[in-house]
Structure formats: C-alpha cells, structure tokens
C-alpha cells in the first residue's frame, strides 16, 4: 500500500501544477491541509478498529492510473441501462472523472444542477462556505479525496425551491486497459424549505480493476427535504469507498437509501449531524451479494440537538463467499433530550460460506431518550418455503419471493416509480429469477 501512497503524494505535486489560478483559492488551502493529513495517515489497515473487518491490502497493493484520460466515444444508448430515464431527469455524468456534457442535462434556472468544477468558478461563496465544512477531514479517505477534489456533482437549491425532477449523478469508468483510481467530489446544499431527490451511481465499464474514492457532503437547511439514493451494482473488479456526510438544521428531513448489489469491496461511510431540534434522518440499506463480494456499511448518527429522530434499517442477503459488515453508531449528546433513535440490521445467509459481522454501538449521554437497536442473522424460514412450494411456486422462485419479502420494509419509502421498477428488476436479476409481480 505504501507504493501507491507514494505515487499519490507525488501525483499531488503534478495535480497542483495543473491548477494554475485555482491555487490561490481558499479551497486549495483545504487541499494542502488534506494532503498532509493523508501523508501522515496513509491507508487504514485492519489494525484500525474502523477497518477491522475490511482488509484493503488486496486492493491498494496494486497500481492504479491516477490521471485518467477522457473518453468521448460513448453514446447514450451504450449506457442507457444505467439511467432511470432518458428525458425525465436532470443528469450529471462523468466518464473517467471528466464531465460528459453530451450525456448530461444540467440547469442553472431556479437552482443549480451542475459540476463541482463549474461551481468552483461561479459559486465560490457556496464552495467556501460548505465544501469541506461537513465532511470528516481527519478521515484517511476524505483527506485523500479533498487533496485532489476538482470534479463531481454540485447541487444548490435556494430557499423555498423544489427540484421537480430526480437528479441522476453517474460516474462511468472505462477501465479496459489499465487499473483506474478516481475521486469524485459532490456537494449538495439545500436551502430553507427547499427539496431535491438524487440518484447516484458508480459504474465501471471495463474488466480491469477500478477504485473510486467518493466524497459527498450534504447540507440541509431548516425545513429542507433531501432524498438520496445510491445504487451500487458494479463489476467484480470494481471497488468503491464512499464517504457521505450530512449536516441537518431545524425540522429538516434527509433520507439516504443505499442499495449494494455488486462490487469487489464496497465501503459506505455515512454520517449525520443532527444539529437543531426537529431534524429527521432516515438511513435505509439493502445489500444483496454473492461470489466474493464484500459490503461494509459504517454509519454514525450524531444526535447533537434535542427532539431529533433517526431511523435506520439495513437488510442484507449474502450467498456464496460474500461478506457483510454493519457497524452502526448512534451518539446522543448530553443535551439531546427527547431523542428518538431506532436502528435495526437484519441478515440472511444463504450459504455456510457467507458471513456477516454486525455491531451496533450506542453512546448515550442524555437521560430522556428512546433508543432501540437490534440485529438478526438467519436463514430463510423453512415453513414459509414449504408453504409457497405447496402453492405451486417452485423452490427458486419461492426463495426469491421470500427474499423480496425480507427486503420490502427497507424499500417502502421509495418515491420514484421508475427507481422502484428498476430496483425490482435488479433484485430479480440478482436473485436470478423472473417474477411477474411488483412490490
């Protein structure tokens, strides 16, 4: 891992030289601080408690191209399957880290749906106020991302506005010849009583190894409503380290759905700061993995202010040699009375060789709170299977139907019908069945 770390450190000098005028901005001072943090910390090892179950050595012992080249031959029909809709969504699309304008549909009317690099030029005030103020700057991967942060999605919804179409953020990688390393950086700022709905996807298109170290910062002002969906269904050689941090003000609601259906290693760091009363955080996750895939969901909810609510429900189905990790921390600060925090993690293991490590962590420093947590690991219910088969539903379909049923409570809050259909199809394909019903 040290070799790749050294390569990144020297790449920073090259990167800095490319920036020209960009070097004199306050944001660049953050990059400089961040590279120092990364130089000091490097990549985490399994000795780090937060990475105990996820060994990154097999990933970072390889070499990766850090400066990728643009790829302009892709057309919409080549990648149609990764999108929800051809026309009914805003789109911010990147190929190898470069903005693909011909696949995108951005806007600056009423609100901004554009690239991070464009925002670095035209929205410096917002960048300087929010970028780097929400994420965990001391974290290894966040620091590494910040050091090179230049491109990604930027969404800014001013007070009282509602983005009426879903926003699709898609990162495509053409890793046909080389291993690739990319670092998208997203910023979502939603004003008072404003709202938006986002679907994010990382997709590698080639056979070589790819790693994406993605950082997303979300700010929800008073009364804001944000729904953010992450669809993770990448190839067997693709890994993703996603760090998403959310800061919430009074009476805001932020819901993050994480669907992990594929990828070599998928690590989701999801952290919420509930800073003012009345804020609600919803965290829903569904992981369905097989082969040698690994998903590691690390969540933290910081109940800083009183009268806030958090609901967390993660469901996992693991087959073959797949592994799951769930580490859910709820931190209730001393003054956060009347906190309501619910956490649950349920898992199904379909093979003896599949495994799950699940660890709820509650740190409660207030005395008038309601906190619950629970986790289960089990197999499919034999009685239920027999019941379905008795009604003529074949074994495999019966299994799939029960797995659908198992995930259903984590799916029920999906607001976009196209997304629901797409997920149903993805789940069905993942379970290799064709079922002619919808949920």
């Amino acid at each position, binding site marked *: 891992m040290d070799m790749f770390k050294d390569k990144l450190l020297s790449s920073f000098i090259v990167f800095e030289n490319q920036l020209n005028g960009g070097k004199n901005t306050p944001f660049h001072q953050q990059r400089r601080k961040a590279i120092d943090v990364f130089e000091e910390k490097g990549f985490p090892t399994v000795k780090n408690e937060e990475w105990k179950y996820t060994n990154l050595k097999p990933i970072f012992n390889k070499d990766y191209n850090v400066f990728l080249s643009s790829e302009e031959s892709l057309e919409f029909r080549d990648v149609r399957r990764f999108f929800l809709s051809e026309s009914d969504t805003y789109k911010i699309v990147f190929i190898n880290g470069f903005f693909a304008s011909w696949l995108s549909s951005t806007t600056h009317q009423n609100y901004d749906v554009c690239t991070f690099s464009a925002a670095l030029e035209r929205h410096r005030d917002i960048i300087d106020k929010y970028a780097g103020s929400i994420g965990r700057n001391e974290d290894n991967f966040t620091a590494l991302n910040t050091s090179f942060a230049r491109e990604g999605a930027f969404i800014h919804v001013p007070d009282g506005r509602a983005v009426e179409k879903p926003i699709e953020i898609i990162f495509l990688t053409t890793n046909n010849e080389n291993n690739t390393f990319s670092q998208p950086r997203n910023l979502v700022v939603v004003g008072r009583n404003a709202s938006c709905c986002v679907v994010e996807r990382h997709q590698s298109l080639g056979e070589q190894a790819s790693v994406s170290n993605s950082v997303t910062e979300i700010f929800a002002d008073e009364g804001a409503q944000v729904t953010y969906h992450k669809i993770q269904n990448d190839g067997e050689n693709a890994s993703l380290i996603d760090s998403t941090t959310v800061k919430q003000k009074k009476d805001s609601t932020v819901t993050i759905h994480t669907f992990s259906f594929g990828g070599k290693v998928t690590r989701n760091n999801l952290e919420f700061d509930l800073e003012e009363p009345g804020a609600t955080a919803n965290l829903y996750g569904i992981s369905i993995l097989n082969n040698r895939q690994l998903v590691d969901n690390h969540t933290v909810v910081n109940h800083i202010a009183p009268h806030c609510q958090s609901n967390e429900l993660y469901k996992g189905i693991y087959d073959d040699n797949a592994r799951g990790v769930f580490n859910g921390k709820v931190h209730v600060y001393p003054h956060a009375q009347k906190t309501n925090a619910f956490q649950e993690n349920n898992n199904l293991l379909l093979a003896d060789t599949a495994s799950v490590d699940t660890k709820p962590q509650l740190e409660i420093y207030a005395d008038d709170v309601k906190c619950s947590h629970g986790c289960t690991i089990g197999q499919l219910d034999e*009685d*239920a299977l027999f019941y379905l088969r008795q*009604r*003529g539903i*074949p074994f495999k379909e019966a299994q799939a*139907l029960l797995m659908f*049923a198992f995930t259903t409570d984590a799916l029920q809050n999906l607001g976009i019908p196209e997304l629901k259909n797409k997920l149903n199809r993805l789940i069905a394909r993942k379970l290799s069945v064709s079922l002619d019903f919808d949920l």
Partner: protein
Amino acid sequence: MLKIKNLHASIDGNDILRGINLEVKPGEVHAIMGPNGSGKSTLSAVIAGREDYEITEGSIEFAGEDIMELSPEERSHMGLFLSFQYPVEIPGVSVTNFLKTAINESRKGRGQEPMPAKDMLKKMREVMAVLEMDKSFMSRSINEGFSGGEKKRNEIFQMAMLEPKLAILDETDSGLDIDALRIVSNGVNKLRSEKNAFIVITHYQRLLDYIVPDFVHVLHKGKIIKSGGKELALELESKGYDWLKQEATV
C-alpha cells in the same frame, strides 16, 4: 385418486407414522380424527411433500402416479392442496400477486398458458363473494396481521382459486368462530364434485356437522385404528378416544 400403503415416516429418528393405509376416490370426503400427537399433521405434511420427514416404508400414489420422489411444487401442480393449520405470513407480497404467481406457476408446471388477468380477477371476485371476504383483502400482504379466522378463510380462498383434485384441510376449524366455520364450510361444500376429493383433518366433530364426510378414520400413535361412516364421528364425540385406544392395545 390417493392410495397410501403401509406408510411409515419418522423425523429425527422418531417414528411418527407406523403403517398408514388409506384410499381416497374421486367424489369422496374423508375425515381423519384423533387425539393430539397421533400423527395427523405429519400425515398431511408427508402427503404434500415436506422434506423434513423420512419415509422409511410404504408408498403414496396420487392420480395414478408414485409421488414419493416429487417436490412439493410438483405435487401441487398435479392438483394436491394442503390448507395449513398455521398459514405463514409473508410481508410485502399481496394476496393478489401471490395468487397470480401461484396460479401461473402451476399452469406453467402443467404446460398451460398463464391465466388472463381479466379471468383471474373475475374468478377472485366470485370466490370472495362466496367466502364473504372484503375487497380490501386482495391488496393486503399474505396473512400479515390476519386474525386466525382470516388466515383460514384465505387458505380456502386459495384452494378455490387453485381448484385442486385433492384438498387436505389440516385443522381448518381451529381458531374459527361459529360464523366463520359456517362460511368456510359453505365454501368447501360448493367446491365438492364428483371429480375432486377432500381429506378433512380435525380434532373435533363440530366441523363434520358442516362438511359431512363419507368416511371417518381414527388415527392413534401413527396408525388408523378404526374406520367407519360419519356416525363414527358422533360416537367419538360422546365417548371420547379412550375406548378406541384400549381396543387398539388389546
């Protein structure tokens, strides 16, 4: 239709069935009665193909075929139905979608085309009227939050939709109040024909006032110790099982 010969079955090394002989012909209704633990539910599970039981001896023929090696779904496709004593709850799957899947998988298993949605809906409405079920039922998740009576009614509803050749009703009367019992029995009686048959498993004779059997068998310690006509049920009601148990041990 169903021929069971010298059937022995065990679970985890415990013998539950110890030589059952039973023949059911089209148009017949057989009642199987017996005290708790006599093997009634095991018998129905073994006929339906539950894999937890080991069949150590004997044979089961259904519709002229040896079904011992067939999966539960294959037996179902042949027209075998088991109404469960404890129907399973399946959250997130509506009664309608479940039935649609069950009916069309069964048709596929028999090499038939899927049933047109319109026909299916029409039939659902008809059956629901007979069983005095509310329309809202169709969009509810299977058995989730159903009362005991609703679960049993749902079983009979599915039976009527699947039109089996042989239906085994395992303690369908348990958990039913007298009105529900009447409605459920009425549903069963409407389905009775010269072509199909029923095995009614029950602890009490009460159900047999409504679904009148042609034959009554008494199961005890994994064996049928007495068979007779419907009057046997009445005799059991007044005398209990003890006189038969004694007779059997003599």
